[in-house]
């Protein structure tokens, strides 16, 4: 897993961000460390169904995509 997928990853731009725990600058696509925890993303939600690469549906009626952050989504259900 990469930093980009981690709960403690804080974007600053599309390339990189900051680790919320360590406050160090990290690249989004570099391998995560041992403190890794899954970020709340659509791909981890039971409402999400994959249709094709990078596209799927939410609750079988809305378009959705797997990498979308869902920490503000009231319908999020951990898979």
């Amino acid at each position, binding site marked *: 897993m990469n930093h980009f997928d981690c709960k403690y990853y*804080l974007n*600053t731009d*599309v390339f990189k961000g900051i680790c919320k725990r360590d406050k160090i600058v990290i690249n989004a696509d570099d391998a995560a460390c041992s403190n890794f925890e899954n970020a709340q993303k659509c791909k981890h939600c039971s409402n999400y169904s994959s249709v094709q690469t*990078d*596209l799927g549906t939410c609750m079988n009626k*809305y378009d959705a995509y797997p990498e979308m952050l869902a920490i*503000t989504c009231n319908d999020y259900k951990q898979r």
Partner: protein
Amino acid sequence: MKDIKELECASEIYNYYGAKPEGEILNREIKKEATPRAEKERQMYFDTKSSASVEFPYWYTRRWEELEGEVQIIRRAEALKSGFEHLTPSVLPGELLAMRKANYLRGSYPMPWMSEGFFLLKEDDLFKEVQNAAKASADEVTTMGQGGGNVTKSIGNIISIAGKFGLRKEEMPILIRVAKKWFNKSVDDIGHKYEQFVPGYDTKEEIMRAVICMFDSGYTLPQGREVINYYYPLQFGIEGIKDICKEKQAKCAGVPGMDRLYFYKAVHTMLEGLQTWILNYAKEAKFMASLECVAEQKDEYLEMAERLEWLSKNKPRTFHDALQMLWIFHVAVLNEDPISGLSPGRIGQVLYPYWKHDIEKGILTKEKTIELLECMRMKFTELDCFASMGVVGGVLSGNTFNNLCVGGLNKEGDSAANELESLIIESAMSCNVPQPTLSMLYDEKLPEEFLMKGVECTKIGTGYPAWVNNRVAMEFLLNTFGKEGMAPEEARAWAIGGCLETSPGSWMPLEVNGKTYFIPGGSAPATSVGVHFISLPKVLEAVLYDGMDKRTGRRVYPAHSLKLESYNDLWKIFKHYFSITVEVLTLTNNIQHDIWGKISPSIINSMLKPDCLEVGKDISNKGCRYNRTFNVEICGGVNLVNSLASIKKNIFDDKNFTLNELKAAIDANFGYLSALETGSYSLIEQVKTANFMDWLKIHKLCLDAPKYGNDDKYVDDLFKEWQIWFSKMCENYISLYGEPLYSCLISVSTHAPMGAVTLATPDGRLCGTTFADGSVSAYPGSDKNGPYALFNSATCYDHSLSQNSQLNMKIHPSVVSGREGSRKFLEMIKAYLRKGAFHAQFNVVDSRMLKDAQKNPENYRGLMVRVAGFTQYWVELGKQIQDEVIARTEYEQLG
């Protein structure tokens, strides 16, 4: 005239306008340090790329689709609410002010409900339809800055959009999916359909293809170039405004004029979305605190969370609260539309009651004030506006034009300058980042020390404050808005919206700790919507070539079929073609903005603007107090006038050559390669062709013709005639809001792409090179008689006839060094403004430094320059503009 052989040998013919900067670089005089907190934020900013996300448009579109059939403004409010509620909060260590546009530091996002064609895949049939509609012409001739935060190329998992924004590749499929949902439903698509009912629509399409006009304001930046008004959130808090809405709803439900009911419901709904957005940030701040080991940082997160929770419902208690509230609503407005030029206005006067109270109570110090103001500057600097390359590069140069004004007069007519404004200037010196730019509303009543503070800031090379004449602005406002009831007292509440758009304001009664203060704020919709921007040299080119665009070989205007045997013939046709342009663009732009108001009305900005909340009407329904805000903007005015002078003198007065000979020389680009071939966009460095000698005589005569900026009556009279005619003719056209248009004289960055598509001009300028900037700036290198001669030329007409005039000057740092240099500098500025000038701004910089920065951009990440109404990082400017700034005349004395 010199002998031809002598000319051939003279190397200065290459550098006829301006000289290549050589020798040792002299640095700017003063360097102040930002507070450690702001400096850390600035370094992070320098390391950050412009980044786009799909989160907001995804949720906006999802909710929009769910509500098909709902009243349109309610549907819009619900969609906005959903967008705000789902934005992922992002709180960075060290921040004192929370909230940003998207979850990246320089975050922004596409708004496909406005225009979606730009995001469709190039191979897609839908994309081809967009291309055929001539919507992308300006994009093709724009150069983007290659450094700084621009993502100029796709790399790895990142896709570059518009040469500026990075988008993660996993978000591209959903962006395209969302964009397609707006096909034939966006403001752009629906507006385009109805525009075609306008007589002469085909001419409009050709005007756009030829880049005689730069862009459609209704589809690109429908709001902005205006001053925000923070009164309602400060006075009532969010719950207070919701209560107002509920009361008003009860009064207008079932009563004729029902649109008011829907407007109040929309505002109420949207505010609920903002409350969730704010609380999501509070929650994130608490989460960050839970991970924090350093006590001081932990406390800051918790204080931030407490402040946000309070402000999600209530009005501010302190200066820090009030500053945070301003920022929340500033970002909220920016998130409802693509917007450039949403100016905070006179916030030193708006925030003064809070600041004074906190200082007197001992809960705030001047040092802490500076730190907060620096953090505010970083927040404004982070702002990006997501738009196409033609708009974001060709017009905006990546800037967002948040203009903060200081000085001016208060409601009673006394100096409005205060101690907090001095600290604002101080923070703009110590944290010298591009945003917000500053404007000094110059009035004779302002204290001398305050003006000196402004000069000290200008001369360190920030490019700000710009110096703007309060009395000239008031005269323009009273002339323009008098019919809508503006009195002199209210005219004093004005400020600059965007880079240099004089914008009407009003005084609103803010109660703070039991006292009432009348604070200024914007009271009108976007200015600089309407006809944007018309390239005057390109219209003249069409006159010379019988209505054709030589670059594309397409007919733009009806053939005049005249031989143009007199200057008056030529001038008459020019006015005819220009009038055709303004007429068709006024009508099509009216449709664009009408559709915008119907599909995508402003709710947040409307709520803020007096008197929308009072009367229950949004901006597009004339809810604002002042509504005569549509204008006609032009570009390349000085090149037009210099060209007219050259034609008049060389062809009709002195008969040095014929019009056909001139056209042949223009076709041959006076014997030079075009700028598009050389990649050099000023006259300093151009390359001769083998047949250079064939055109040398004519070129030299064109270059030697009278030039604006030298106090030369021959050309200045032409300039005056143009300005007066232009200002009057605008009033013949009526805006969507039923008011006459007015003239606006700024170029922003359009003088680069518009120059790029224009052949050589009769003033000797070469094909593809950039026009003169602004409106009363001399063409680079052509002002040879010193600053006071330039001032005389610039003030040869009444500046209050138009919304603005714009003068850029470049001054060598050695000229203004020391306290004595500052005094001389201020006296020079005063002398210009006392002549009735509206505006002047300055680059205090050694041109050699700019040249070095062009060669070695990695050494100049923080170098800022003034372009045309805005300050921008050098490395984020396109080469067209860089070359033009280098070529500008560098004044080495002020007398």
